[in-house]
């Protein structure tokens, strides 16, 4: 179970990579998060998280094309792996289980 655990920001990034499905690279991931969650994301935080996710085997990266706006630098595309999918579903299940338990907890006193 432990290897499936995700931090809060890790979870957001992983979900966003999933949402972008095939078009996930530094710029799009960041824009997506900033637009959806309206919070500012620094390139540094995002990149280190992506590396960490890659190291854990939740995403994998692939070399892509460059363009003029990037000064010709290549893109690095990220896609979610099967292991990564397992991790987000597991995280969702954990939370659901917790949510399910919540009313009982409130009802319990007396």
């Amino acid at each position, binding site marked *: 179970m432990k290897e499936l655990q995700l931090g809060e920001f890790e979870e957001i990034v992983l979900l966003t990579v999933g949402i972008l499905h095939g078009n996930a690279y530094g710029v799009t991931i960041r824009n997506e998060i900033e637009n959806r969650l309206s919070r500012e994301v620094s390139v540094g935080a995002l990149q280190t998280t992506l590396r960490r996710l890659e190291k854990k085997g939740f995403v994998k990266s692939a070399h892509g094309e460059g363009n003029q706006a*990037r000064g010709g630098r290549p893109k690095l595309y990220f896609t979610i792996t099967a292991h990564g999918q397992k991790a987000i579903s597991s995280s969702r299940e954990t939370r659901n289980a917790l949510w399910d338990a919540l009313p009982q907890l409130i009802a319990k006193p007396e």
Partner: protein
Amino acid sequence: MGNINQQPPHFFRKLFRGFCKPSLHPYLEGDLLEHFQEKAQTHGLKKARWRFAKDVIKLFRPGIIRSFIPSQKLNHADMFKHNLLITLRNVKRDFSSFIINLLGLVTALTTSLFIYLWITDEASVNDFHIKGDRLYQVFLNEPTPYGVETDPGTQVQLAGTLKDEFPEVDQSAAVIPYEWFDGEKFVLSDGGERFTSSRNQFATKDYFQLFSFNIIRGNQAALLNDKRSVVISAELADRLFKSYDAVGKTLEWLHEDYGGLYQVSGVFETLTSSSTQQFDAVFHFDIIKEDEGDSWLEWTESDPSTFVTLKPKANPELFNDKLSKLVKSKNNNLQSYLFAQPFPDTYLYDRFENGIPVGGRISYLKLFGLIAVFILLIASINFMIMSTARASKRMKEIGIKKAMGAERAHIAMQYLIESVSITMIALIISLALTWLFLPQFNQMAGKQISMDLDPELILYLILAAITTGVLAGSYPALYLSGFNPVRALKGQLSKSLNGQITRKTLVVFQFAISTILTVAVIVVSQQINLIQSKDLGFDKENLIWFTMGKTDSEKNGGVDGLSPERIESFLQLLNNTPGVQHSSNFAHNVLGAYGTTTGLSWDGKDPAVNALFAQIAGGYEFIETMGMEMKVGRSYSRDFSSDLDKIILNETAMAAIGYENPIGKSINLWGQDREIIGVVKDFHIDMLYQDIKPAFISLSSNDFASQVMVRMSAGDHKATIDRIKQVYEDYFIAGIPFEFQFLNEDYQRFYAREFRAGVFTQYATAIALFITCLGLVGFASFTLQRRLKEIAIRKVLGSTPWQVLALLFRSFLILVLTAMVIALPASFFISKSWLDTFAYRVDLEIWFFLVAGLSVMLITIATVGYQTLRVSRTNAVEHLSLDQ
């Protein structure tokens, strides 16, 4: 995207390129640029630039930053292991030079460790007082015809005045230390039959607030509140009451002036040698103050030591400034002035010249610290010489490593690891040796140092070992790592003479230091010989002295002293004892401590001159007992009833007064005319640092002179002393301990510092010479190795072994001679400056330097002699085929 030439901030882009990991760099820079372009379109250029900068700065985090250590792919642990392995192999291959290096380093580290222990111990004297940083001792400077004399004795009123009139003074104390009584033995009893001698001092109320003596019984704040209270040491409590719980008990002091019953108000932990103030019991200052009377309060008098603590923010310079004007403001006729020295400094800076502290113990500390550094340096140089000399043997190794891609830094690191690991081994051995020889060292240094391996010391030691290792390894590391790999692989040493010249310079340096130390040994031992054999004007051998005991009537009344009759009859008994030649009572201590007075006047005295005379008070036969000689006239004699108002002067005093035929003339002492009956030949009572002062000997038959000096016949002192002890115990109250001292031992103690310096110098020199010679053996074997072929050719061409020998010796002796040229003048100046501190000193003679130079040279020849001889006698054919 029409405005593609909108650029992000150049500096931040560069910065990013500088620190980003190469593997991430293109993608990240792409992302950053794309963001920038987007932002520029939506939010404008300015905002985009700001954001770019912010992003770059936020990228500065682990995971993104690249490693700045070059060739990060090398496995450091493996390289380290490899280097250690190579070190070990080299040790095995060249065991003799390893031993030479190790021996040198062990000796040097052990010596330095001892010197370090000694220095820290000396520096820790008196530093246990909590208020030490604002604790001052006040000294009195007295201008005299012989320069300004500095005296710890200050005015009785000073302590109180400072506290009342100086707002910056926090607390003050006046102390009459035990030394003030010049060796007089005080006897205490428990009120019954248990007697013991004690070092008593007087101090004012706040004494135990200023100084942090450890009070183990009693109330620290109220120790000397009562006039009849006394604070005693744990050891004295044990001697008197067989228990530390002495508070509230009563003790009796048997003394004609201060005698009586006192109540113990506190017990302090027995003092160790880390305190310069040494005493067993502290009595209330008012006891002695009332005994001395009102005249003692005058500003012309100077007796007690005065100590003050300043308030935390007070300025000591301003305080000193005000202090220097104090005496004049109290009595306009006085020329003396006061100054305060930080109390913790009084031990190390205890020599004053013209009223200013100029050093003292601190100079020996610095000197030996320097010697320790030099000895370490000599050992490090050995290491340098040996490693560079063996370079040819390791050339191929270096060549191969370089060819395989090793950088210069790696090879340098390898040599540094080698030298540091050898130093570490040496450190461990020398720690064991230090621990082993500490008792002997303590005996030699007169100390009780214990070696506590606290973390701080261990840290220092490791730092010292690393520094020495790096120092020793630095030059070889630089030299060897600089080889050209191609030439090294071919086996060609660099053609430059650099290596050789550096090696020779280092050898010369070692010999120079050894020679300077050798001269120092000769000069110091000559001066010590002078101290030992100097005709002092009296005979210090066969003399013992002690304080007279108390008689019964005194014990009952407790006030009357020994009457002149009682003293006389005791001396008669002594004189009748077999083995005793002469005996006499006297006052003060014969060495160093004596009274001085300006109260002498005569016809034609220049009133402007503040003539200061030393006063010696002795009984009949004092001059005979001491073995002094009369120049003219006679000494005091019992045959003349009126000798008590006569006077005897020494030669210097006679010269100062200037009478041509002094005998029978009169001179005025303290308002009373006295007839001069004799002139005694000059004698030394000060240390030989000082000129002989004018002095007079007055006759004292009463208990002012309560010490007894006894001259014994040479021979069986023990039997004589046993008989004297018997007379003493029969005459005085039984149970009062008979404690005597040999004057000769006092004299040895007087110069303990000089003798110790002498012994230290001898050891240091022997060690320096030993290490230098070790290095020389290594150096010689290397040089000879390289000249084998040359020697073979010379022999083939007809040189005799003797010619070869001379040739080889010449090359070593040139080095030694160069060292002499540097060292001898340097040692001349160093010796001269040391000797100049003595008023009576040996002259620097040419033979000191000749002997030092010759002995260093002989040692050199003896060291390299065998090797050289062997090489000069080898068969020439064997070495002609060498391909070096």
